[in-house]
């Protein structure tokens, strides 16, 4: 039965997408068919698909925030992270897969932003699935050409003196931004620091929250 969700928000506060309540589309039908064929042929199981989705749902920017907070409090870890982010985060216990991961550090003079102009490569093991805008034509087209204007649309107005570096991800090379630690946070614990680290601050379209 189609339901009318138009005036409702989901538990997470986001609007339901039309796909949830419109008649079966061609592509949805193809998804069901492929999934069933793969199960019938022993390529996968319904349980494996469900557990993949659980794993996907359990990843969130909190993972990345924990990494950033560790780098802020532990200079040795910070050095490891900048040297080889994949190994450093694996040591923290995150499953980041076989891909290369590069952490790029924001400083007083340099601000980094990540994008995937090809499609949607994203440090999903540390941040969860990419937000819709990250996959949008507008972001991918424009951030490489006029990053400052795009950042202003996120409410981030960088001084002209700040160098902006845009990093274009590829299928096997992903980036995460190590944002600069906010001023006045010397006394905060690692977990208090992690709470300041937003998703967008690790993409580079934002900066961490300020303390207090």
């Amino acid at each position, binding site marked *: 039965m189609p339901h009318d969700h138009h005036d409702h928000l989901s538990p997470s506060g986001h609007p339901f997408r039309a796909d949830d309540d419109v008649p079966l589309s061609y*592509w949805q039908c193809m998804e069901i068919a492929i999934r069933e064929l793969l199960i019938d*042929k022993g390529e996968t199981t319904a349980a494996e698909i469900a557990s993949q989705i659980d794993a996907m749902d359990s990843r969130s920017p909190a993972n990345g925030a924990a990494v950033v907070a560790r780098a802020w409090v532990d200079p040795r870890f910070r050095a490891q992270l900048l040297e080889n982010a994949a190994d450093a985060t694996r040591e923290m216990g995150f499953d980041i897969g076989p891909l290369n991961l590069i952490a790029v550090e924001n400083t007083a003079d340099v601000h980094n932003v990540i994008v995937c102009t090809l499609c949607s490569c994203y440090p999903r093991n540390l941040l969860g699935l990419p937000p819709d805008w990250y*996959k949008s034509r507008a972001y991918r087209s424009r951030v490489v050409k006029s990053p400052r204007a795009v950042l202003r649309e996120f409410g981030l107005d960088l001084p002209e003196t700040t160098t902006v570096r845009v990093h274009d991800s590829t299928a096997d090379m992903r980036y995460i931004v190590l944002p600069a630690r906010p001023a006045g946070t010397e006394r905060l614990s690692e977990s208090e620091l992690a709470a300041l680290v937003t998703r967008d601050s690790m993409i580079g379209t934002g900066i961490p929250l300020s303390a207090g």
Partner: protein
Amino acid sequence: MGGQPAGALDLSQHDFALWEKRVDALMIIGSARGHFTVDGLRRALEDMGEDAFETMTYYERWIAAINQNLVEAGVYTLEELGLRMAEIQARGDTYGEAANG
């Protein structure tokens, strides 16, 4: 598309539908089974032409790319896919009915 003109950013977010999450899972599983690489998916996406980026949603493009790669890898045939899709359409009008949950 990097560098091409485009409009203002839309910062709204939708909840991922179950079928979209399943497409994502199929991408990871198919790739882990060695049936395709991200490059293979990318090639299929490029082959769709620019129109696909205007007319199809993100996960619609992905399921189409996964399908092309799985057929090329010989995991199933287009005939098998067509038969199964017809069967699924006959089950009901909505995703929930057609997917049997």
